[in-house]
């Protein structure tokens, strides 16, 4: 009966009730989305690279190096020479290296010049290797391997001819249209930026730039695709490379050796260390956002409590009736608490559904921009914890109107003062 009373009472005031639910839902949604997106991006970033001990590039900021080499965000300020790469590759502790040459794109998807070792040694997630859904690694100069998303979004299949563009902007005006590439392989989805990448050989990168200098075509000089094959296609420089060691214990020693490399200004970073630096920078922003979300929640709860308190005056007759037919004062206390419970629960559920829908919409956008696959279902243990916390706070705050109802009912005589 108490439940029916609370439910009917809320239905009776459905406009106010709905608005209250909506404001709690928005608070809940903001709070959850901050937590959810933060957690999912962290996981996405962490999952992108596994089993790589060092990332080596030209000396700049460690975070910048990590972002452009692994996450395809931003661009390199400088290249490193092929000689330096070969020297470090030959170091006795180095088990494998993956060279990366960046700077070209196709329809906004970044092109990575690399070696076959990419397909052998690159690991993501829990040390998972890349797998091919179709075709095989590149072998010829003009072969390309597509990430899963690239193939899916552009509708490409094997043997498709593609033209690469110079630069990494979405719209490029300079195309390497004299040297088209052929798709020979398509990778299985990984949920990492690999899905958004087009992989070609270092020789391919060299070939398309053979008649270029300083980022522009040399006027009057054109070398055809066939002609380029006869030239020496050993790269002169690359953007960065990933290093795997035989013995993890040697990581710091090699890092120091690379940082002290005398012939060129190189920098080696540990991906895990740089990632945690990145989280530290983002931590402040996260905290600020979480605090704002908390304020939004508190504001919406306060709104609900104010609403309950102000309607008590209108409900005076109703309380008098209940009192006259024998309802003890604590019955009114429970009635108010139950109404708050129902409102808050509805708000929490609505907020979760809103976020879920939001995530379903945001998921492809985030994947396009950052290559990270974000789970759309926001329900997690932490989510339940937050929900429980909000519910507890709401019930605690509801003691104010509930106690007011209790007092009002206690002093209520057997007459309904009109």
């Amino acid at each position, binding site marked *: *009966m108490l439940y*029916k*009373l609370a439910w*009917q*009472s809320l*239905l*009776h005031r459905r406009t106010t009730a709905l608005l209250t639910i909506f404001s709690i839902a928005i608070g809940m949604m903001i709070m959850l989305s901050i937590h959810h997106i933060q957690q999912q991006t962290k996981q996405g970033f962490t999952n992108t690279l596994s089993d790589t001990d060092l990332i080596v590039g030209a000396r700049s900021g460690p975070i910048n190096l990590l972002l452009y080499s692994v996450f395809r965000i931003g661009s390199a300020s400088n290249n490193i020479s092929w000689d330096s790469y070969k020297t470090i590759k030959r170091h006795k502790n180095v088990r494998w290296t993956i060279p990366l040459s960046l700077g070209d794109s196709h329809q906004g998807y970044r092109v990575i010049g690399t070696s076959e070792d990419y397909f052998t040694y690159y690991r993501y997630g829990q040390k998972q290797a890349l797998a091919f859904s179709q075709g095989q690694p590149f072998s010829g100069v003009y072969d390309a391997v597509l990430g899963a998303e690239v193939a899916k979004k552009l509708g490409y299949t094997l043997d498709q001819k593609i033209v690469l563009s110079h630069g990494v902007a979405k719209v490029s005006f300079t195309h390497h249209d004299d040297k088209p590439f052929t798709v020979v392989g398509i990778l299985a989805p990984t949920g990492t930026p690999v899905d958004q990448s087009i992989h070609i050989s270092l020789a391919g990168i060299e070939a398309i730039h053979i008649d270029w200098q300083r980022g522009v075509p040399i006027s009057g000089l054109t070398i055809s695709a066939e002609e380029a094959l006869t030239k020496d296609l050993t790269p002169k420089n690359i953007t960065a490379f990933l290093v795997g060691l035989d013995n993890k214990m040697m990581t710091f020693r090699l890092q120091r050796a690379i940082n002290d490399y005398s012939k060129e200004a190189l920098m080696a970073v540990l991906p895990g260390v740089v990632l945690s630096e990145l989280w530290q920078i983002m931590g402040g922003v996260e905290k600020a956002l979480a605090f704002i979300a908390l304020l939004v929640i508190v504001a919406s709860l306060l709104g609900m409590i104010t609403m309950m308190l102000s309607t008590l005056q209108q409900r005076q*007759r*109703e309380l*008098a*009736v*209940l*009192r*006259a*037919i*024998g*309802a*003890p*004062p604590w019955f009114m206390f429970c009635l108010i608490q139950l109404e708050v419970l129902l409102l808050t629960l509805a708000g929490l559920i609505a907020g979760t559904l809103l976020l879920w829908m939001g995530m379903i919409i945001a998921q492809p956008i985030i994947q396009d921009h950052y290559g990270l696959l974000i789970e759309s279902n926001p329900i997690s243990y932490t989510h339940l914890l937050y929900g429980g916390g909000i519910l507890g706070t709401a019930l605690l705050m509801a003691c104010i109107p509930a106690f007011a109802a209790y007092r009002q009912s206690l002093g*209520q*005589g*057997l*007459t*309904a003062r*009109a």
Partner: protein
Amino acid sequence: MTNTLSINIEQLRFHWNNKNTSHPAVLDIPQWHVQQGESIFLHGPSGSGKSTLLNLIGGILSPTEGKVTLLDTDIHRLSSTQRDRFRAKNIGVIFQQFNLVPYLSVLDNIRLGQQFSGAKYDLSRIQDLCHSLNLTIDLLHQKASQLSTGQQQRVAMIRALYHRPPLIIADEPTSALDTDTRDEFIQLLLREGQQNNCTVLFVSHDKPLATHFDRSVALGEINHAV
């Protein structure tokens, strides 16, 4: 009609401020009793303490001195929760107006009283009461707020009568009704009260209504407070 006392008031004094007896007493009733099954018309000018007396009988207020015995129970010896339960079980209350929870259906309003009183749910009894109070059955599923005042007062009467309480307190229940519905309401209340051997304590300032009742009491006669 039995000879047991329905209401027995002895040496009752009531001050608004319990501690400070220098306040003049609102009520000072040395002795007053009502037989079970009697219908009493209690009248007096406004401000004479009628509502206070009802609240003392209903167990909402506690007397400063003396005791109120209802059906052999000294109600002010009970805890407040016990008094609430006692009221739910033994007293049917009808107000002047706004007797119903507006957002509940008529049936739910009646059931609310039934549940607090601890009586069994019996739809046919509700239908019988509707029938004898000239209310159509389909009214039961309407929202209380959709009913006319006369209909609402009769629904309140059904709720008060449903669990066959030994005492019904009606505080100016007809003052919001027009003359025709008023007389009909009083006749129905007294008829149903008689059939259930129920004491009816009817409070009003409208003296001509007294003719319907077994006994008419002016509060001034029993209350010795100035």
